[in-house]
């Protein structure tokens, strides 16, 4: 039984997004993800980390390695206590943005990862969990 690895990165300032990206990159490479899969995971982390900073001001990214039989994976969980997302379906729609961006962050991150779960409550905060399995 392999020991599970995990860690967390606080996202408080813009440079923390790059710190989170680099941590995710190192873990993904250690887990044996290929160059393109690693780029997908790191890009998704960058989009979700930037959303935390942009909408909530601060939050945390927790990562952990997953093992499901022969499958290994990586889970990233972005938690903030920001304004929450009033309409998740709308936020997942292509080209929708309330933060002055291009509106590709959330739907883009979903496409780049295998699984995405969004828990959000207006006025309380948002937790977005994404997972990638190694093929």
């Amino acid at each position, binding site marked *: 039984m392999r020991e599970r690895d995990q860690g967390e990165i606080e996202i408080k300032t813009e*440079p923390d997004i790059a710190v989170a990206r680099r941590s995710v990159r190192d873990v993904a490479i250690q887990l044996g993800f290929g160059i393109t899969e690693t*780029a997908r995971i790191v890009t998704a982390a960058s989009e979700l980390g930037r959303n935390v900073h942009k909408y909530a001001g601060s939050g945390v990214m927790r990562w952990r390695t997953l093992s499901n039989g022969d499958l290994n994976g990586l889970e990233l969980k972005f938690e903030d206590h920001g304004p929450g997302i009033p309409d998740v379906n709308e936020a997942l729609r292509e080209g929708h943005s309330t933060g002055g961006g291009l509106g590709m962050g959330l739907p883009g991150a979903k496409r780049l990862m295998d699984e995405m779960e969004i828990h959000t409550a207006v006025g309380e905060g948002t937790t977005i969990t994404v997972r990638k399995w190694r093929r």
Partner: protein
Amino acid sequence: MNTEPITVIKVRDVLLVTMPADPDDATVSALQDKTLEAMNQNTVRGLVLDLSKVEILDSYFARTVAETAQMVGLMGGETIIAGMRPSVAITATELGVTLGKTRTALSVDRALDMAGRPRSNRKRYPQ
């Protein structure tokens, strides 16, 4: 947090702007200032933006590149994006990134070759 800086050098009559592997937001936003300032100080046709070291092109980075190309265009220059890695091209496309009508080249070498030529009247490469 240390990030490698952007380098800007003049090669013949174009500016060669090289982005580091994983620039933070401050470095990305410096791209616009550095590039436009260098355009203003040099007599050049345009710029070649070397992305060959870049490992990640997220939406913020992509938007800055597209905007910079547009601004360079307003100043009368042309931008050629060079050397994007396959993993970056795949990921950026899946994310939904587009770079508008910006010309692209496989490598800096080819981009420098293209730089003097108008878009509509491109010569074929000698075989």
